[in-house]
């Protein structure tokens, strides 16, 4: 809880991959895309596709929609290449774009979505995790509101600060922290019911 308070009050975050993850490397990658290099796009795909896909899947609850989101984000990046040089925080910028596109796609969804419990929010890496655990975690995550899932994803997998989560999802920092904590509390209750 202290960490949450410190972060909300503006104290340095204890960890932030989204902010500090080799910003120079990101800017270099953006520079190559801005210069129209195909190899720059390839590098960006390798670095971001999985993360955008995961965020979109957690938001939309549909593999098909998540695919659309990944494609739309890369097309938008290519179209806005003139502005890439002015982006100061590339990773949060990309995640924010992915979030907005995912919200749009989910809103105008035409196809019947699969039941949220059946969506593979998480998978077990080979020989490391248990597929049964992955299915159970996915089922429990499906019971959360999308906004709380977003906060947990960005915090746990992208290691964003609450300020960054707020900026990415377009809510105040306190709201982002609140969503995260409510999501965790709900997960805990669900785990007690379904141990």
């Amino acid at each position: 809880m202290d960490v949450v308070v410190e972060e909300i009050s503006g104290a340095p975050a204890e960890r932030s991959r989204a902010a500090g993850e080799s910003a120079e490397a990101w800017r270099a990658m953006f520079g190559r895309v801005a210069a129209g290099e195909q190899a720059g796009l390839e590098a960006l795909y390798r670095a971001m596709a999985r993360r955008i896909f995961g965020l979109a899947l957690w938001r939309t609850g549909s593999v098909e929609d998540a695919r659309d989101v990944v494609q739309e984000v890369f097309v938008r990046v290519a179209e806005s290449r003139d502005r890439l040089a002015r982006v100061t925080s590339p990773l949060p910028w990309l995640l924010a774009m992915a979030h907005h596109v995912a919200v749009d796609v989910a809103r105008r969804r035409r196809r019947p979505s699969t039941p949220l419990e059946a969506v593979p929010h998480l998978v077990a890496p080979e020989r490391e995790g248990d597929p049964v655990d992955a299915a159970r975690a996915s089922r429990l995550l499906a019971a959360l509101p999308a906004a709380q899932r977003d906060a947990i994803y960005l915090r746990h997998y992208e290691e964003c600060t609450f300020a960054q989560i707020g900026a990415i999802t377009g809510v105040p920092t306190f709201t982002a922290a609140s969503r995260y904590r409510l999501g965790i509390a709900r997960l805990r209750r669900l785990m007690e019911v379904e141990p």
Partner: protein
Amino acid sequence: MNDDRETLARLLGGLVPPEPPGELHGEVMRAASAALAREAPRDLWTRIWESRSLRVAWATGVLLLLLANALVPRATSPSGMRGTAPAAGDELDSIAHLPRIDLDTLPAIGGAAPSAVEPRPVQLPLKTKESPS
């Protein structure tokens, strides 16, 4: 906070979000490359600035508006109802100055109209017994 981490570690430990489907790479690269090859869409102001004819049209329009603002006479009507046709003005005047029906009564605002004059006591005719004579 430690509880939060413990909860997440118990639930999400060793699990990761799924990889995007393999064929998505080709689709995304094709679409993004096509977008990269296209000329970047320019916004309205850039297009106006870069086109000579649009620049001239825009400047002419602004000039005409300024001239119209400076040259159109303003003091044509003293009543402040400029733009209203004279006939309509007369009609409005006639409505605004309706003749009072009862000059002794004040206008009613939100209730019964108070009378401007003291109510006169009703004088009932006194019946006098006529003596049968």
